[in-house]
């Protein structure tokens, strides 16, 4: 999976290419990414694949003059529909993740180019809309088949789900995304096990008892919670201990589930 670098590191890469060997270990793909970004100043020119990607990017820009390096909301919608992606589908979050969108419904040139460049292989370049749509299909199936990848996309989604300049996602928004990730039909991981409809319980619990906006920590820990409940034997909640480091909301949720089971006589084995 592509690993993004913080801006400061990219700056250092630039110097590294000219001066020191210390950074020589950095993979080629990254170097090309940066060189492309600073294409005006560095000697090596862009590859044909990158030029094609650039063309795709350029064609979706909202305003080529005032924001030449951005695809805005309108362009993004067009782009996603051209990729045949359902906006309600978790795949959307995978695309934002892949192209390192600065915010919901936006693509930057830098993220777009580096994302697609890294997705490309010599035999299989992702440099046209059709090829990209094909690649997106593989991402969609990866979401369900590769839990680690799913979690990466999920965790990264916090950034897009929260309103700008806020620390937490309002409850209703949070559930819109949780439904997308954890309910059937949206390419996510369905959060049910043979004995328990976890997502229903979580919805009831959170909306009735917690009601607080969801902060990043809780957002991330929910992914851990889902993983724990889906591990073999995890349904019984035996993995939970009051000495654990779970957020209070998860502690309370476990108590809530246990209480429900005690009352309803559900099978806890």
């Amino acid at each position, binding site marked *: 999976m592509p690993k993004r670098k913080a801006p400061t590191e990219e700056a250092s890469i630039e110097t590294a290419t000219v001066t020191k060997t210390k950074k020589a270990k950095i993979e080629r793909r990254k170097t090309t990414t940066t060189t492309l970004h600073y294409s005006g100043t560095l000697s090596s020119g862009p590859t044909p694949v990158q030029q094609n990607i650039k063309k795709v990017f350029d064609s979706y820009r909202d305003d080529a003059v005032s924001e030449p390096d951005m695809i805005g909301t309108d362009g993004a919608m067009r782009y996603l529909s051209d990729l045949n992606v359902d906006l309600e589908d978790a795949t959307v979050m995978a695309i934002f993740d892949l192209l390192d969108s600065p915010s919901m419904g936006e693509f930057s040139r830098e993220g777009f180019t580096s994302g697609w460049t890294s997705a490309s292989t010599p035999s299989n370049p992702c440099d046209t809309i059709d090829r990209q749509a094909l690649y997106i299909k593989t991402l969609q199936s990866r979401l369900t088949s590769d839990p680690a990848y799913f979690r990466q996309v999920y965790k990264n989604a916090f950034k897009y789900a929260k309103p700008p300049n806020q*620390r*937490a996602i309002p409850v209703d928004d949070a559930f819109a995304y949780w439904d997308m990730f954890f309910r059937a039909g949206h390419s996510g991981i369905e959060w049910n096990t043979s004995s328990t409809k976890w997502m229903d319980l979580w919805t009831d619990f959170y909306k009735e008892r917690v009601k607080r906006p969801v*902060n*990043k*920590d809780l957002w*991330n820990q929910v992914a*851990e919670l889902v*993983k724990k409940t889906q591990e073999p034997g995890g349904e019984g909640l035996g993995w939970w201990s*009051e*000495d*654990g*480091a779970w*957020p*209070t909301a998860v*502690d309370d949720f476990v108590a809530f589930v246990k209480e429900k089971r005690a009352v309803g006589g559900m099978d806890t084995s």
Partner: protein
Amino acid sequence: MSGRARGGKIRAPRRALTKDDVDCESVWEVLHRAFREIHARNASQLSFEELFRNAYKLVLKKKGEFLFENVKSLEISILDTDVKSRIVDLATPSLLLSGSSETSSVEKRTAGERFISALTKSYQDYSIEVGMITDVLMYMDRISTAEGRKPSIFTIALGLFRERILRAAVSEELSMSILDLLEMTLLDMIALERSGEMIDRPLIKASCRMLENLYETITEEESTKLYLTSFEPKYLDASRDYYRNEGQLLLQEADATTFCSQASRRLKEESERCQQSLSRVTEPKIIAVIEKELIAAHIAEVINLPGTGIRAMITNDKIDDLRNLYDLVHRIDQRLKPLKDAVHNLVLEVGEEINKSALQTASEKQQPKAPEKKEPGKGPPPKPLNQQTVAAVNWVEEVLKLKAKYDKLWERAFRCDGVMEKSLEISFQDFINGNSRAPEFVSLFLDQYLKSNGKDKTEAEVDALLDSGVTLLQYLADKDILESYYHKHMAKRLLMNKTISRDVERSMLSKMKVKLGNQFTVKMEGLLKDVELSENLTKQYKDYAAKLEAKKSSKVDLEMHVLTMTVWPIFTSESELRSCVYPAEVAQVKESFEKFYLGKHTGRKLTWMHHMGEATMRATFKKDGQAVTYEVAVPTFCMMVLMLFNDHEKLTFDEIQQLTNIPTEQLIRTMQSVAVAPKTRLLKKEPMSRDVNPTDEFSHNPDFKHQFRKFKVALVSEQSNKVENAEERKETQKKADDQRGLLVDAAVVRIMKARKSLTHQQLMTETIQILSSRFQPEVAMIKKKIETLIDREYLERGPDPANPSYNYLA
């Protein structure tokens, strides 16, 4: 010549030997006869020198082997015939049938003693005899043992004794060996002794010594002594059965005290037995048997025996029994688990009882108070705190009594055991903190005795009480709550001039400091400092005022406390700080002081706490031409109101409020104090009722009378005092909670800043550890604080969810 002489000397014996070398049979014959004489105890006739030479001769002639074998078969025949028959004869049927009921114990005993004494005697004689023979055969032994082929003839002979005597069957019909019989008889005798009969201890000792001197094999390894290989295991087995049995019997029939004393007696008996009858090596083993079978198996049950167990012992202060019990438990378990648990439960039980009755006392007051409200004519209602204080003092006294009791037990019964000390401490902590109001109670208790009104006690008594109160401090988990209560109580004492003396207060603080640390008393020391400064200030102001006096001649004497806002826990709502209107004379003094004070300290602000003040005024009532002057101590608000009636005949409540600007609620209470409270009706109220309405009219009361010339008007306590108290308590709790939140926050950040990265568990432990000197932080609270710190990006979670940890983000 000398050479020849030397040669002759060397050769001479050789020649002599060669001469009679054919004669080894006859030499043996001599020896044989002599040895038989020795065994027949006729050795005095024999010449050792001659025998020795004979034996020496044989060995020199390389007939050592021959000699050795002959001696051996001689010994076998002697043992098989002479010795054995002496013993077997005594293995009488009564002895053999031992255990069966037909044999009377006396008969059995005599037979047994005879048998044992015969056996040990035979052994002793035999070993002496063999010893003599060994001396004769010393040269043979030296040669053969030096060649490392054979053990000494003495060892051989004793081995033969073991084989031919001890291992021999008692009779032809029985498979039982003599050793078996001996051991059985010994065990029977010990059993007799255990059931209280006297037995022949030296005899037993002798037979044990015999067994200790005999070995399983001729190599004579220390661990193969017959005593260790044969007798001791049987003895321990029998003892195990015996004590297992005895334990059950004791439990069925006896009480805990008997059990303990019996067990201790058994321990003593057994070690005595090992010293006097058996062997010292058995002592630790048999003690272990008793510890396991008798004590460890039953002690938990014994401790909890209803009626006689530890509960009864502690209730009835049976120090000796308890010490006995402690000693027994201590033997089997250094951690004293059964005893510890039982004591813990007892302390908790009694402690919870104390808690319950105290809380009941504390809440009881509400009942009798309710009807009292309807009869305002019955005098000022008792101060509502009284009941709380009673409950608090009772509670503390009960706790102290319990503590004194257990301290005594610990010292005298539990031998100042460290484990017990710790356990008792935990028990007390547990139940003391089971009372949610413990910190308040301790503070109220201290308050009670730091107040000067408890005059029925001598200084030393008060001192002792305060000291014991301080000992409770260390048990409190919520020290921060204690701090806030003590702070409040102390402030009240100082302001109301109720404290015994400031020296006592100060010594109290230093005692607390020792127990709880410097930080604890910082605020309280601030109180004392302010009070002292204020005293000086009052004096200075008086001097200052005296200079002005010449011009203005004020009749008002001012005494004040200037209190640092942050140090004093006086709750002031905005309305109370509203500027109330003072009578002109007083206002003048007030202004004069403000001028004086602000002149001394620039940049400070003075806020008057009207509700805290008190005024002493002289009031003259004229009736029937008679004037009576009283000196009345009143709260400041009362003074403000009363002074109005120098200029007015009659005023409504509303008018009074306009004139004085006193907050309504305060004014209502003020008016109740001076016009409703039966003994201090300085004003007349129209209409006369308990409730005060805005239109009520007040006027001078010419009929006023009081039995004393000097008296005090107490501010009527608020009607809802009780409820307010509960609210105040909640307030205190909430404040403490907020304070705790901050402390937890600070502690977590401080730890993480220093450690950079910690696992969840470590962080929890360290946080709790840091804070426990002030209070017992709740895990949930720490977790919440960690969550907010993650949210505020002071911390982040570590990468591995299976091993939760946190990193500090600079």
